[in-house]
């Protein structure tokens, strides 16, 4: 009787565990995604321009678009994706444990992360660098004038380390105040707890929008680090890794070839063999990855090419007002370069 009741308890616990569990095996992410009928994508807890819920609660941003592109490639439908907001601390564990299929969470590609955390970076969808934001009335024009300043930043990011390195190399004193959440760091900067807020420059522009008076703050010109931001997948699933990698490449190639969401249907009839291969008219590139041959067609049709997602989310016409800069195509002197579909 006693033993039975104990076993009974164990059974109940296991049943409950199964009822709430969702399964995803690292080795065949694609088949699990297909069975589940949506991509589970890890994003930030709210960073305008990259991943942020709009007024109606829909996620928008450049990182969100990468997730949508993957969903479009797999299902032909960019809506078949769900988003999990993750803190900087949780993001890798969530990916490792299978809670999300991929991360698109303004995550810096660094060697330590790539080699020691059991994850793979599939590319760079935004070349960024760390910068500083200060109040205009301080009259500062360069981050080298920040000697003795208090810096607000996010705990557990590469920015904490970069700031330390930068100030030490330039023989400047500093005080770091590291918050668990970006929102708290921005709030503390806004109230004057710190002289400067430091993080990736794109995020500085984004967070500036949340300040009481955005125009009273200025982003200093110096970039003190390389922050290549890109999507991340679990190590050891090459097929899935390929799909995420080429979802980004397809958007870059589309821009280079002049294919946009508006003209993509017309372009299907184009003579240019590169375009025909990209849009799946010729070749079996999709099949090789285990998805439809028109994978890139769906990405461009529903999400757009790289230029479209950039301009829509962070570009000159948005509140962030970021110019393409290093994120221009290689043909225009930038760094965005995609291997050919061939």
């Amino acid at each position, binding site marked *: *009787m006693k033993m039975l009741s104990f076993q009974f308890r164990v059974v109940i616990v296991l049943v409950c*565990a199964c009822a*709430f*569990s*969702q*399964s*995803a*095996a*690292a080795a065949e992410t694609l088949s*699990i995604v297909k069975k589940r009928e949506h991509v589970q994508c890890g994003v930030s*807890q*709210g960073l305008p321009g990259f991943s942020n*819920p709009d007024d109606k*609660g829909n996620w928008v941003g450049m990182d969100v678009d990468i997730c949508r592109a993957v969903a479009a490639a797999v299902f032909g439908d960019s809506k078949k994706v*769900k*988003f*999990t*907001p*993750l*803190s900087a*601390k*949780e993001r890798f*564990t*969530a990916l*490792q*444990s*299978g*809670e999300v299929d991929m991360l698109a969470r303004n995550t810096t590609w660094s060697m330590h992360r790539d080699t020691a955390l059991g994850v793979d970076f599939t590319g760079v969808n935004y070349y960024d660098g760390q910068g500083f934001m200060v109040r205009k009335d301080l009259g500062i024009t360069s981050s080298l004038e920040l000697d003795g300043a208090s810096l607000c930043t996010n705990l557990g990011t590469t920015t904490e380390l970069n700031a330390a390195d930068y100030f030490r190399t330039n023989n400047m004193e500093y005080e770091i105040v590291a918050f*668990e959440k970006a*929102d*708290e760091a*921005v*709030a503390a900067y*806004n109230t004057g707890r710190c002289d400067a807020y430091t993080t990736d420059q794109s995020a500085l522009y984004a967070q500036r*929008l*949340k*300040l*009481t008076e*955005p125009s009273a703050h200025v982003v200093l010109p110096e970039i003190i680090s390389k922050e290549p931001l890109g999507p991340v997948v679990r190590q050891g699933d090459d097929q899935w890794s390929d799909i995420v990698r080429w979802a980004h490449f397809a958007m870059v190639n589309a821009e280079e070839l002049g294919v946009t969401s508006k003209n993509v249907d017309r372009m299907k009839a184009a003579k240019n063999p590169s375009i025909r291969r990209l849009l799946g008219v010729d070749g079996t590139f999709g099949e090789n990855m285990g998805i439809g041959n028109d994978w890139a067609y769906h990405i461009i049709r529903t999400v757009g090419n790289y230029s479209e997602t950039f301009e829509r989310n962070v570009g000159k016409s948005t509140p962030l007002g970021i110019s393409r800069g290093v994120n221009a195509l290689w043909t225009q002197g930038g760094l965005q370069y995609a291997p050919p579909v061939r």
Partner: protein
Amino acid sequence: MAEWTPKPPRPAPASSVGLGAWARRNLFATPGDVALTVLGSIFIIWLGNMLLDWALINASFSGDDRTACLKPEQGACWPFIDAKLGQFIYGRYPEAEIWRVNLVFLFGFAGLVPMLVPSAPLKSFNIAFLLGLYPVFTFIMLTGGLFGLPRVETTDWGGLLVTLVVAVTGIAASLPLGIVLALGRRSRLPVIRYLCIGFIEVFRGVPLITVLFMASVMLPLFLPDGVNFDKLMRCLIGVALFSSAYMAEVVRGGLQAIPKGQYEAAAALGLGYWKTTRLIVLPQALKLVIPGIVNTFIGLFKDTTLVLIVGLFDLLGIVQFHFTDASWATPETHITGYVFAGVVFWSFCFAMSRYSIFMENRLSTGR
């Protein structure tokens, strides 16, 4: 013969009745008392004046954005609460589905109130509803995915909804778990005893925040490849395990207070361990420690705020989140938001503590 009539009693001396006497006794008994009373009154007047100025006289009551709350000497910024109230209660729960949450709140309220009124009839049906039907109903209604209800991800839950879900689940799970642990701690079987002691002491020895970190960052690594829980679920488990350890110690206090005669009488009746425990010991022990149990509930309710640190948006978390809305950024927004959240939390906790005192008084008359 004239009948003897007692004289009417004389009134108490004027110096011992009425407001003046009361004040003399309770406020101005000694010169020290006079000083204390004066100082205390000055403090109360100063504080009351400040609060009144802030909450009413200098406060804003209407407006659509921050411009309503930027006058000099600005007090509370109530329109901020007004504009965000829906978010504070439901979080990002889809607007079209909010009726489901309301229905759950309504049923919970309807099930709880007769439960709390000792004279209300049909207690056993009530218990069956609250412990059997209601959790299933709540689960189906809130998550959806069944009976044509659209599925709502737990990442979209927020505000008071999450606070209540975490608190109520924690309360419902920690009491039975705590009883099992308390009994286990007094078990005659050493393996079980040491297991329970270990569990209780570990969970009581570490801060809840590390348990939540473990649940949110570490637990996935303990599970086999590909098995994973919903994040809210993981936090619920963490909170429930944590408070069950505290609950176990409270229950143990009750168990220790049961007089030996009760055990002997039960043994004389030929009852075994389980029957003694179920019929004799537990009912008495639990009654003894009701204040302790309610205190643990109150502690748990307050501790639900910690889930914001691991990225869930409970009431405090969502209030904090909305401070980032630039269109409401004023110097008074923060204080107003915190005061609002504080009043909500305080009302729940204070009500629980008053109810515990009420039950304590009621039950103690029977002893």
